[in-house]
């Protein structure tokens, strides 16, 4: 095998330069030695002989250099020639080349994009923060539960831990920023004074925090703004440093602006401002959190020293925690501190994003598999089609090894284009993750740059695909036997088996994989649709909700009561408003309901003596009419049920079933937070926290009896959001021009925002499912084209014998449909087994939902028909005479 010999030679020249160099030296030495011997035999003395020998050779180094060059230029020459030839061959069959490059681009691009997203979130989630690979987080542990850590404990860890390079605090918080008539809650961080230095980010205006600014209760009301906040709310004011701004009802001095592209250290949310830890009471409320070792509220980060493993750090920190437990038994007994890696940290949203990522990675593997089978298939088909050409060239004296090298070069060219295209696609899609999440209404930053390790992985995949692609035709030509292949190939029959089975089974595999993805996408889409269209038990589309900045404006309870009464009267009088009411918490949002231990007459406590805890909401009169929750018995709250009247409550059906065993509880007593109330009504169940929750007991109490200063206002209206919002702002400001309004949204929109994860999952699976379908169709098209072109003789014969175009069409299509049907049948069998794995993502949709399967079947069939159509149509255009005469 000659080409076996040549390949190692090339590699030797490339890789083992040293050995070649030594050999060259040795070879020339041998020559010189012989020449010296000859000269000495002629009578010269050793020195003379040596001198003359060197002279006759002409300088050892020059000769060496020339030899080296011989090897070099040849390599380059041959390579360039192969490349040029490869280009020509690819240009000759543009359809094939474009298809292969397209497949490779899609596969490699999708893979690179997904890899960069995953790597971004898991490993490098905080843009501009230095050395994230050494960051870990700390939480407290008590018995087996997780808890936070306390500030004094963290200071001790910082002092005693030798493996920690630095420790800093970064707690998420929110505050109302009210500028003009717009108020919104913006997210920020409470941080330790060393925060900006520890993460290596420096403000572009002003300064970070000085050490000491995180001590002292509320002693340092200073704030660093994010670049985005500075631009959007403060109009990029260059004189911003030193100005003051009210957050909630505390005035802060602005001391710095963070750089562009820095979003804080919380995955899944953009931080807009940073305040030092001394201000924690102003934002979290509660007692002195800085001195009290028992006050556990801290979310701490540690950067380990280089080379330190998490295990080592955990050991040292556990030892410190044990020491603290011994020194301060009152607060720290039985408590430890646990070290977490960034992507498992309980206090950011990476955990929410991970399930989506798992889906993504699986899906992209499917796609890559389809791409590889596609490309391999197309190449097999083409190499088979070129057997004739190859054989003729061999018979005319072409060097077999050279032929092989040319084929490999062609494969490499295709892969190079595919890889370049894939990189481009990945680059364009690098912000795709952000787009997907912004569909769901979230405002968060998803890291989207393509960096070193990601490119490395993509390049590795490219290389593997390249080798696979490039070597496939190589193996085909090895088995070329000259005489065999010179005989005609066009005598193959449409239904022939044999070598065709491998190609056909590849196509069947692709169809199966695509079908699986389509079924998954259909199931997820159905589930999402169900979630979003199932009635939550109240009218979510015609009810809008917002609230007024009463707490930040400093309203106390009496003033707030007056304001609330006046406002609700005005709102009810507005045109188009059917009803309006207040409630402390909104269902299907991120807010949490109040809960209380309850007791009632005639209900036996369970053996462990614990009173049951149930959730409740504090609502104003007209709440149920506004929300559209039907009253089953009894009455709603009225204005008479105020703080001077006897306490009352309204319960839902599940509560009646659980605690009163289905009997009407109106008139019965119910103890809430230690006070006895009387049940005056029963309402239908509705959804409280999530759409897929099971029915739970729930009750309502009058807002006046359990007062809160800043409840949400719900307005039931036929008017569109813009006009009702404008009208509301007018009324609010008429009462008090210092107040502002939070974002007004419909309850449905509120609920939609909490299902964002499902939406993203659906979008992703649908997108990749579509991609897989496209690729499978391409594969099918390729195989059918080939089969038709190989069967021209048979088709010509049939047409000559009287078959019309429609017969030929049917023949070709049926062959194609046979392949797809096989693939679909296998796909159905696999899907019935595998969709069970989607179980917990599906809401009210069975994993064997027939509609989803039927949809996938229909889509797959239509796509296959489309793919087979063009080859079939070309078959009908066969000129029978030409086909019969052709070789």
């Amino acid at each position, binding site marked *: 095998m000659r080409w076996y010999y040549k390949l190692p*030679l090339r590699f030797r020249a490339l890789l083992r330069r040293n050995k070649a160099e030594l050999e060259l030296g040795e070879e020339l030495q041998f020559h010189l030695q012989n020449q010296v011997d000859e000269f000495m035999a002629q009578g010269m003395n050793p020195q003379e002989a040596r001198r003359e020998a060197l002279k006759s050779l002409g300088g050892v180094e020059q000769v060496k250099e020339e030899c080296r060059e011989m090897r070099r230029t040849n390599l380059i020459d041959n390579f360039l020639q192969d490349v040029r030839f490869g280009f020509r061959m690819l240009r000759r069959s543009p359809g094939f080349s474009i298809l292969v490059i397209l497949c490779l681009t899609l596969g490699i691009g999708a893979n690179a994009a997904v890899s960069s997203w995953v790597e971004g979130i898991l490993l490098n989630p905080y843009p501009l923060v230095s050395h994230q690979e050494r960051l870990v987080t700390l939480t407290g542990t008590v018995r087996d539960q997780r808890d936070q850590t306390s500030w004094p404990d963290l200071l001790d860890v910082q002092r005693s831990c030798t493996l920690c390079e630095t420790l800093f605090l970064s707690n998420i918080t929110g505050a109302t920023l009210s500028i003009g008539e717009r108020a919104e809650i913006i997210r920020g961080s409470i941080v330790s004074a060393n925060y900006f230095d520890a993460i290596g980010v420096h403000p572009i205006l002003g300064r970070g925090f000085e050490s000491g600014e995180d001590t002292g209760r509320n002693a340092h009301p200073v704030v660093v703004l994010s670049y985005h906040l500075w631009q959007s709310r403060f109009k990029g004011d260059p004189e911003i440093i030193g100005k003051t701004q009210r957050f909630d009802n505390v005035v802060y001095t602005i001391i710095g602006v963070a750089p562009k592209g820095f979003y804080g250290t919380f995955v899944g949310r953009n931080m807009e401002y940073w305040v030092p830890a001394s201000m924690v009471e102003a934002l979290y409320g509660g007692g002195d959190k800085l001195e009290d070792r028992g006050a556990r509220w801290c979310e701490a980060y540690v950067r380990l020293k280089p080379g330190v493993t998490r295990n080592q750090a955990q050991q040292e920190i556990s030892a410190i925690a044990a020491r603290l437990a011994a020194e301060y038994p009152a607060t720290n007994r039985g408590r430890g501190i646990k070290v977490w890696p960034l992507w498992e940290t309980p206090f950011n949203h990476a955990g929410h994003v991970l399930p989506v990522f798992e889906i993504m990675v699986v899906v992209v593997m499917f796609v890559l598999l389809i791409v590889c089978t596609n490309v391999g298939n197309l190449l097999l088909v083409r190499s088979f089609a070129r057997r004739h050409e190859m054989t003729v060239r061999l018979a005319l004296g072409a060097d077999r090894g050279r032929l092989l090298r040319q084929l490999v070069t062609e494969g490499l060219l295709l892969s190079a284009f595919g890889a370049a295209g894939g990189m481009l696609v990945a680059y364009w899609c690098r912000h795709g993750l952000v787009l997907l999440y912004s569909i769901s209404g979230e405002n968060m930053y998803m890291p989207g740059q393509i960096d070193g390790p990601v490119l490395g992985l993509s390049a590795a995949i490219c290389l593997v695909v390249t080798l696979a692609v490039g070597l496939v035709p190589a193996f085909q030509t090895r088995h070329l036997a000259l005489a065999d292949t010179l005989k005609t190939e066009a005598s193959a029959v449409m239904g022939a088996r044999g070598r065709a089975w491998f190609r056909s089974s590849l196509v069947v595999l692709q169809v199966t994989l695509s079908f699986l993805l389509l079924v998954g996408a259909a199931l997820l889409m159905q589930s999402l649709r169900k979630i979003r269209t199932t009635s939550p038990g109240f009218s979510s589309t015609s009810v809008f909700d917002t609230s007024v900045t009463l707490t930040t404006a400093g309203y106390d309870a009496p003033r707030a009561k007056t304001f609330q009464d006046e406002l609700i009267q005005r709102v009810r009088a507005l045109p188009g408003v059917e009803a309006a009411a207040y409630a402390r918490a909104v269902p299907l949002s991120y807010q949490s309901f109040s809960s209380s231990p309850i007791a009632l007459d005639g209900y036996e406590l369970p053996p462990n003596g614990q009173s049951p805890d149930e959730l409740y909401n504090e609502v104003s009169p007209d709440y149920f009419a506004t929300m559209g929750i039907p009253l089953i018995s009894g009455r709603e709250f009225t204005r008479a049920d105020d703080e001077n009247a006897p306490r009352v409550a309204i319960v839902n059906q599940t509560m009646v079933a659980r605690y009163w065993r289905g009997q009407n509880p109106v008139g019965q007593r119910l103890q809430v937070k230690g006070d006895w109330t009387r049940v005056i009504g029963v309402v239908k169940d509705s959804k409280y926290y999530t759409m897929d929750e099971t029915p739970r007991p729930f009750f309502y109490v009058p807002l006046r009896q359990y007062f809160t200063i800043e409840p949400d206002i719900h307005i039931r209206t036929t008017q569109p959001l813009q006009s009702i919002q404008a009208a509301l702002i007018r009324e609010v400001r008429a009462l008090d021009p210092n107040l502002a309004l939070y974002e007004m949204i419909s309850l449905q929109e509120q609920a939609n925002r909490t299902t964002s994860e499902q939406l993203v999952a659906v979008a992703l699976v649908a997108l990749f499912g579509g991609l897989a379908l496209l690729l499978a169709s391409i594969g099918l098209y390729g195989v059918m084209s080939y089969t038709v072109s190989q069967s021209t003789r048979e088709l010509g014969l049939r047409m000559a014998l009287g078959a019309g175009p429609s017969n030929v069409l049917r023949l070709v299509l049926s062959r194609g449909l046979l392949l797809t049907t096989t693939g679909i049948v296998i796909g159905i069998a696999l899907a019935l087994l595998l969709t069970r794995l989607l179980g917990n993502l599906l809401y009210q949709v069975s994993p064997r939902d027939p509609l989803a399967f039927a949809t996938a079947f229909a889509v797959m069939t239509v796509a296959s028909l489309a793919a087979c159509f063009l080859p079939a149509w070309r078959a009908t255009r066969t000129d029978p005479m030409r086909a019969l005469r052709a070789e």
Partner: protein
Amino acid sequence: MAKPTELVQGTLDLLILRTLALQPLHGWGVAQRIRQVSKDVLQVNQGALYPALHRLEQQGWIRAKWGESENNRRAKYYSLTPDGAKYLRQERAQWKRLSSAIGLVLDMS
């Protein structure tokens, strides 16, 4: 019309290949054999010999193997490959045509 150096290079290649067609030889041996057979007329330029050998090896007309020489030293022996033999046949035919053509022109009256 080829450059003079190329012509010389091509001729040297031909000589080397023909010499190796008989038996495998090392570089020194090739030079000696050519000198012998041409009765000392053709003295191969030693500086051009080894680059030529390496180029021929690169192109696959000859292959190399290390072995022991007559005087028990390590030497690199070259031998002709089948491709090389084919190439040699073609080049010999070409040379014959060329030299007879030149002869015709020189002999013209």
